[in-house]
């Protein structure tokens, strides 16, 4: 077990990530979500919470994603559908978690299977949404900087209007 010592005594014990190598492919992700959503807030000690968070990321990087990738690279369509279904669920909650899988999705789009096509479509939509969100944040930052400069009289109205237009266009 991986042990996390609490400040005032006591400890949290979580299963070693090596043991998860033999789990069903989707289970490490379910475990990560379970601990994040149900247990983490109960640990009280913020240092322990951070350490557990880091361990969960480690599991994601070292076990959960590589295992999913190994399934996506395989030939078993049933397993691929099961894995994609889990990936789709995660993409709705936290798209960043499945970033390493992106290149494999593109390869899978060659497979002629309606269920797989639909799942890939849904996941790709989540990626596009996330990309747009990122872009929007970038434009918003630029627009705010320009706004500040405009109010200070350092740039003209035309330049500020251009930045604002770019932001609003993307937002719409």
């Amino acid at each position: 077990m991986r042990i996390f010592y609490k400040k005032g005594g006591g400890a949290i014990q979580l299963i070693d990530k090596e043991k998860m190598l033999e789990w069903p492919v989707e289970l490490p992700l379910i475990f990560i979500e379970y601990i994040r959503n149900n247990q983490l807030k109960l640990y009280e000690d913020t240092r322990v919470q951070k350490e557990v968070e880091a361990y969960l990321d480690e599991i994601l990087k070292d076990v959960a994603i590589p295992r999913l990738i190994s399934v996506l690279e395989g030939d078993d369509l049933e397993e691929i559908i099961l894995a994609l279904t889990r990936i789709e669920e995660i993409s709705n909650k936290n798209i960043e978690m499945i970033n390493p899988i992106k290149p494999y999705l593109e390869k899978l789009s060659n497979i002629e299977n309606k269920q797989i096509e639909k799942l890939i479509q849904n996941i790709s939509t989540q990626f596009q949404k996330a990309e747009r969100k990122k872009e929007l944040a970038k434009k918003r930052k630029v627009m705010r900087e320009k706004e500040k400069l405009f109010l200070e009289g350092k740039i003209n109205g035309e330049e500020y209007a251009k930045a604002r237009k770019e932001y609003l266009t993307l937002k719409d």
Partner: protein
Amino acid sequence: MAKKSKNQDLDLKAAKMLFNEYLERGREEKPIDLPKGTVKIDDLKRKQALEKLYKLVDDIIRKIYATGRPSITLPSRTSSNIIWDEENDLLLLGEQIMEKQFHSLTSVADITRLMRVLEKVNELLIKDLHATKREIFYSDVKLFQDQKNSDKSIEDVATMLYTTRNSTHIVASAKGSCIGRLRIRDKNDIIDLEGLGSGGWTISPMLDNIEIIESDAEFILVVEKDAAMIRLSEDRFWRKYPCIILTAKGAADIATRMFLRRLNKDLNLPVFSLVDSDPYGHYIHSVYLRGSKRLSYESPFLATPEIKLLGVLTRDLDKYKVPKDCRLPMNKMDIKRTKELLNEDFVKNNKQWEQDLKLALNLKIKAEIQALSSHGFEFLTDQYLPEKLTTGDWI
């Protein structure tokens, strides 16, 4: 009764110290070195068990071809072949071997039953299924006639394969339950043992499907009786004092003992038992501690040698002022059983335990856990257990 302390003083200091000690030491834990002259039994994975089974059958076939008078050998399970390993505090099987011949008239039924069980084990392992001892009996009632016969063959098969019964996928019916600060995996499901209502989780006999995945418990409490479990459960004892509670509802069954051992080993948690203050309660504690004679070949997989006897001790009856009318007089059988326990090496080697049993024998009294409720229903959870776990008052 010990002077009533304020609840905030009952910080379980002694139990926590033991937990920290175990955590530190746990990282260096080595596998048990069995003494010379004892049989080594392995807990096998499905594939390994199948390989061993095929090798055994191949040997039998080879013998038939070579001699025409085949026989099988297996470690004897008679009491003369049961050895107490003092160092590891376990009951183990010695190296005495018995031979079962295929060609004598008296052994025909015995051998046929044995081979039928082998056939069933093969089927279970191939299909990755589990069956209870009762199901094995019903798979061929005509042949087995009585469940005692099929049970004996099942134990023979396990010893022939030098493995635990669970490795043969023949399991005992579920009996025990567990509740508290623990999360487990049962195949594809994550189970939270805090969120299953007051009944807790029924300990699965298919422990090869179970894995401990998370816990913030600091100790394990094993209670003899369901009544005490209900009290602890109603009080949500584990919320205030981070622990895992389990009961076998009386005598300790295999699944409960195996699960307790797994918890103790995986989580390095100290284990305390709460049993009746009578020879049966003490015997139940001893079975958790070192295993039963009948299943001595599985002891290393079933015993929890570090379990502490928390209570109810005979000395507690005066200390906690249990009223005289809540104490029961010992009958002849209790006295006989207590004397038998006092004759056991493992009791003789534990002076505190010996003293407590001698005190019971002197006073000729016994008491149930429920006798503590003479001070109120919450006395067990608010006072007795926290105080003992704080002061380290255990054997």
